[in-house]
């Protein structure tokens, strides 16, 4: 009995040690993940809210287009006032949506900050979500920069997450499309917006070709979708500005964005150097 009792007390004494070990070991990771999960839940909620606002804005956008068309065709005071009101409502709703997306992006950033280096796999997905939210909030060029980095990293490790890599590229192509469209609508010259639309076209074409190589039904659907997006880009390039102004914007596109596109990046240049360093097996001249 005494032996059993001693064993029991002994085990009980080990428990705090185990707990402390867990706390400072795997417990930390679990805590971070738990905290990140909570933040992500909040971000997802915020995203849903933003999406709802975006949908609402889109409806207002359609209504505003219709109202403006009516006012154009029949410029009565009533129609004009309705058009003005619809435009105001549209802008207000887009502003709300943009604000919601901005909050979403910030929350995803909090998730990323919390996660740190704990879970690169999860972090990539969160980065995608954050970049997507940035694009829809109107920070198109920030979102594009994030997505370009993400695509580069994911494709450098092909085995990591192909669906995520594809999604990131799709989102990147979409961001370029939104950017090009907004640049064009804001009156930027063709040489500015064509650069962006060209990138969107390239990415959609690449995605469509990759999807066509797959043999699953999902791939086939992706191929059709990407093909359609590719055509939309071509339409953007070939439409006149007036045509474009009369068409509805894409559903998830921001209404306006920062048009201060970063300056055109020059071709990346590798530092050149003389390959014939000491010790390289070049011909050794006389005198050695």
């Amino acid at each position, binding site marked *: 009995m005494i032996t059993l009792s001693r064993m029991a007390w002994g085990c009980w004494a080990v428990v705090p040690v185990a707990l402390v070990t867990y706390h400072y070991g795997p417990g930390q990771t679990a805590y971070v993940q738990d905290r990140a999960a909570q933040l992500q839940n909040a971000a997802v909620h915020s995203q849903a809210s933003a999406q709802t606002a975006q949908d609402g804005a889109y409806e207002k956008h359609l209504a505003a287009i219709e109202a403006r068309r009516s006012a154009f065709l029949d410029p009565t005071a009533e129609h004009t006032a309705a058009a003005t009101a619809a435009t105001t409502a549209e802008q207000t709703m887009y502003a709300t949506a943009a604000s919601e997306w901005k909050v979403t992006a910030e929350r995803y950033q909090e998730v990323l900050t919390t996660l740190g280096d704990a879970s690169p796999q999860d972090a990539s997905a969160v980065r995608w979500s954050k970049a997507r939210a940035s694009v829809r909030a109107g920070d198109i060029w920030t979102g594009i920069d994030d997505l370009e980095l993400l695509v580069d990293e994911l*494709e450098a490790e092909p085995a990591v997450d192909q669906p995520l890599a594809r999604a990131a590229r799709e989102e990147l192509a979409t961001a370029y499309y939104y950017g090009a469209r907004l640049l064009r609508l804001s009156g930027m010259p063709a040489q500015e917006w064509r650069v962006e639309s060209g990138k969107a076209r390239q990415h959609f074409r690449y995605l469509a070709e990759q999807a066509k190589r797959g043999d699953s039904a999902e791939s086939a659907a992706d191929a059709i979708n990407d093909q359609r997006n590719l055509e939309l880009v071509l339409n953007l390039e070939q439409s006149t500005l007036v045509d474009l102004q009369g068409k509805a914007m894409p559903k998830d596109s921001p209404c306006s964005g920062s048009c201060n596109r970063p300056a*055109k990046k*020059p*071709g990346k240049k590798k530092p*050149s150097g003389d390959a*014939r360093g000491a010790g390289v*097996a070049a011909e050794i001249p006389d005198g050695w």
Partner: protein
Amino acid sequence: MVGECIALAIVAAISSHAQAQPSVVGVPLVPAKRAMTTVQVTGSTATLVTGAGVAGSVDDEAALAALAGASAQPASNTPPLAAEQLDDLRREYNGASEAQRQNLRAYFTDMGVDIKKLLARPGEAAAPDSQSLAQAIRAIEFTRTPQSVLAARSTIGFAPPPKPAATDFAATATWLQLQVFAGEWTALGDALRALPSADAIAAYTQILQTINRSQRGDPNRPADPALLPEEVLAIADAAPEELSDWQVTILAQLLKEAATKYSSAAMLQTLSADTRMFGKQDAAHRERTVKFLVAAGMALDAAEYFPDLAEARELSDAAALVNYGRYHEDFAASTRAGDDGSSHLRTAWSLYCEAALIGGAEASLRQAAMRRAIDLLPSMPPALASAWLKQIFANPTLAPAALEIIALKAVSIRGGSMASEARAQAILTMKESVDTLLAETGIDIRLVRVPLRMLTTALIGEVETALDGSADGNRRGRGQAMPHEMELLLRAMPSEQWMAALEPSLASRAYRAAIRLAVGADEIDVAIDSLAHAVKRFPEQAQPLANDLLTGWEKRLAPQSLYPDEDQMMFIGFARDGMTSAPLTRGRQRRNLDRLARLMFVLEDVGVDPRRLPAVAHVFHSCHGMTEVFTRAGITSVFGPLNTLAAVTAAGLADQMRSGLSGQWSDRKAQQAAGMKRSPEAITQLVTTGYALAIELIEQAIAQDPKSWRYAVTKAGLTYDRVQYIQDQKKQDFAAYNQFRKEAFEAFAQTAERYGEIVSAGDQRDDASVYLAWFSAAVGATELNYLTRDDLLIEGSPQDDQIDLIRKAIQKLPGDLAARHIAAFTHEINGTLNRLEPSVKPRIVKHAMRIIGDHPAGAALRRLTDLYQDLMRDEIKLRLTIDGDDRVGTRERFGATVTLRFTDEVDRETGGFSRYLQNDVWARVGNSYRPMNYRDLLKKSLESSFGEHFEVESVGFFEALAPPMPVREAGADGWLEKPVAYIVLKATDPSVDRIPEVSMDMHFNDTAGAVVLPVLSNAPQIDAAQSSGPRPVENLKVVQTVDLRDLDSSQKDHAVVLEVHADASGIVPELEALLPDFRTALAGYEVAKNGIEVRAASILENDTGTSGRSMYSWVPAPPSQYIEADASGTYRLPSERSWLITYTPTSAATGHAFTFPTLNAKLQGTLVSRQFSDMDIETVTTASVPIRPHVFSRTLIFSASGVAILAGFVFIAIRRRKSVASSDTETTLTRVTPMSVITALRRIESERASSLSANDHASLIAEITGLEEQYFGLHGAGADTAPRNGEAHAHLREALDRWGARTTTRTS
């Protein structure tokens, strides 16, 4: 040969006749006006002697026929001879001897011409024969020329003509002429003295008057009597009586001329020995000699004939004093003076002054002395000069004379050859002299007014010449005077007292000149003072005078380049002598503004509103530093409160501000260049405030004159510039910017409409400036000369429609106004072209042509457009070609070649395109030549062209001097291709599907100066998602060198190193593709993850790219062979790569050989294997090299240690049973010798003694002793008794075996 006769005729006569009858003369003749040919008739031939020598011969009959033809016309009917030619003929006829005349008359009579009638002057009867010798002599001339002298000497040399009879006047005169020509002075003197006095004097007079006459009456041909100085003395001595003064003067002239060509030593020697006319024999001779020599400019030589100076002074001999003065003056100018030159000059001046003040002297002498003294005044100390002038001007007789001399000198000074600065100094001296005169009280100004006027006129003329350069040399032609000259002239300007003495018309001009001169000398305060005096006297001229001052001041503050074309500067070098422009510091800016404010007050005092002067705004602008923005305080300090500004002034200031704000005021680089260290924020603040102020100013102008379209244009320009500036600072959203820009353009449109209404109503002359301003804003900048390529309007951008709107606005003008305005607009554009940045010119022309359309005025621009089109599109093409398959993969290296294709004609007309592949090429850029680094520019352009989805690994250029190769372009011949660059690229994303087009700037010259044309390439498609594998290569060479020297080095981890170096034409493949089996080269070794060091790839260029025109760089000789295209037409440069592979040992057993990796079977190339042997490198021809496993590896050490330990245990165990083992040892001696056997037996005896019985032990010892004795003992058997070789061996072996067996058996 009837004797020799000389007929002198005018070639013009022959010429004119020859023109009428060319077949008669048959020789080419020089133009009648200048040709003068002597026809020497000798026998049956006549020789035409021209000034240049013998020109040809004609038959005498023909020549005379020509003369006859010329003279055949009746005298009344004027022959085809000019009056001048007739005079010449007449002179020659009169100069001929009687015999010659008779011959001539006979010939002319035969031709039916009466030469006397021909030579008779109009209205005169035929020349009668002379009635006296004097008449005969006066009819001929004694002008000596080289030809006449030679001819006379020749005549006398053949047969000296006898002296004719005294009654034959003509013959006597001719004889005298011959003596003069021949230089027979003694004969001449004798003959003259033999003649009656009157005839002799007449003859001598005629000789002196005509001997030095310019040849043939042509004043442009200098006289050349060909006299020696001593001949002049001889002529003097030939005089029939005492020489008169004028004769001495003429003789002095002859001497002066002769002395310039010949030495006068002989003459002086003769002179010192006394001659008939000159010498020291008496006072008259001395006086004459002095006069003669001094007049000949030989005052120094005349000194010995001078009277005593003291005596001359005592006698008040002004002439002697002047002569002494001449002596000292000449002495001062001679090399003998040395350091005493100025002293002599002062003495000379004192003597002149003394002579001038001698009351009893002749007036002419005093004047001459005074003239000479005044000439020397600039060199005299001012105090002395002033004292003398006071003496002169105190004399009521001398004062006007002195002033006249000064005035005459001033007038004549401009025509002289004096240097401008010396001239200015002389004028200053004169002015000071006049100031002295005017300072004298009691002077009657009326007496001196005329010379004063002349002097002032001369002074003003000099000033105007210095400022405008109307009549002077090159430097003056540019209106620039030397600073010192300006300063002297400024000091020479008339004082107020002087001005008061002048007539108003001249005083006004003098004031104007004084103001301009002061401004030119940068003495603005002096100019303002002069202006103040001027406007007091001439208030009605205040405005133009002030405008003059302002305009000149503006030029001083912002000087225009003297040399618009810098090319000229290359040759002028350091000769620029214009007054340098000082930098406009803040202090200087403040002082200038203070001066301007003072000027405003001066003008206001006389009732002129200076703010209405057109130039005042410009001066205000120029008073500011290049980078200083106008401030409200600055404007107020000069112009008063803003709300009081006149419209024209406000608009002028606003326009100045617009120009500055869109140019250097907002340019940070310009600010830095001017030494300003303003931060970007400070500049932004200044510019923003400046725009606000400028718009306020122009709005005020518009408020005063709402109908002014010019003000509206300025406002529209300012508004547009401000919008652009804010956008450049990234301060507003693009949509907002677009909106503001639209509003600015709307302002231009409204202004153009307003202008259209005014001009349509006939209230305005045609002026296209509103359209030009609108156009300038539309294409990117209101100041086209500041327009850069980055700001230039791009087709398809939102403001592109403005060009169409401008065209429509012009076309809306009624009637022919539209066409006229398009022409005016075209004129404006043409005038702007040469100021444009060369890179923007093509696009400006293109946009302008959209407005100009097919208007005839645009022909020049249309030609330019066609030229640009030809060059950019039709005759030059930039081609970008992928080297190999277009499936380039992602992050895989591939090559692209840039080639230039062009037509033969372009190659020929533009001088080729080699320069684009070179640096340090001297090329014309704008108005200057400068070294251009075309190659670097092209490299930069290529690198910036590929966008962000390509990594430019390296850019290599082909040989600059490689000749272009013929190629067919679009199926057409006549094209050439020149490889330009080979670029190694990597696509960084699989979605990339095309290479962006690259651009190459080409520099040409068109009719409006330099132009830069960007030529764009094609944009080839690629597939970055797939790779076709290694890129095509040629001449692949791989060298691999293995280093096994560290195999045994534990410090270096027993690593094996393989260096791989590959080069090829094209892209060298990656290592895995090049040597696929390199990882398995050595068993027991592996290539770690970081075991491959990849060295940077590089493209190998044959050409350094330095132009041969570089002044200081050594240029290598061009290669003997240039890179050529392969079979597919692709040019590629060689590239090289290298890798360092480190093999590290694994736990597996090391192999016995290092097997060299082999070249990929898919690649064509050579592979050389080598290995290090100590410090040498050896080529290895086998597939592998054996290696010696390292013996001290960790495994080996552990194994060896284990074995050693085991061996130790075994040894101990064995040692316990050593006897068995040892017996074997002893009995198995490999070599049986007496020593070894004895040793073995001793060992048995010592180690195994216990196993032996006492007898055996004793036997053993005995046997050992026996053997020692036998083989080594002194008393043993020795050599003689020792067993032989075989027997000894057997004996010893037997003993050893026996004892061995005995001890072994006992032990066991």
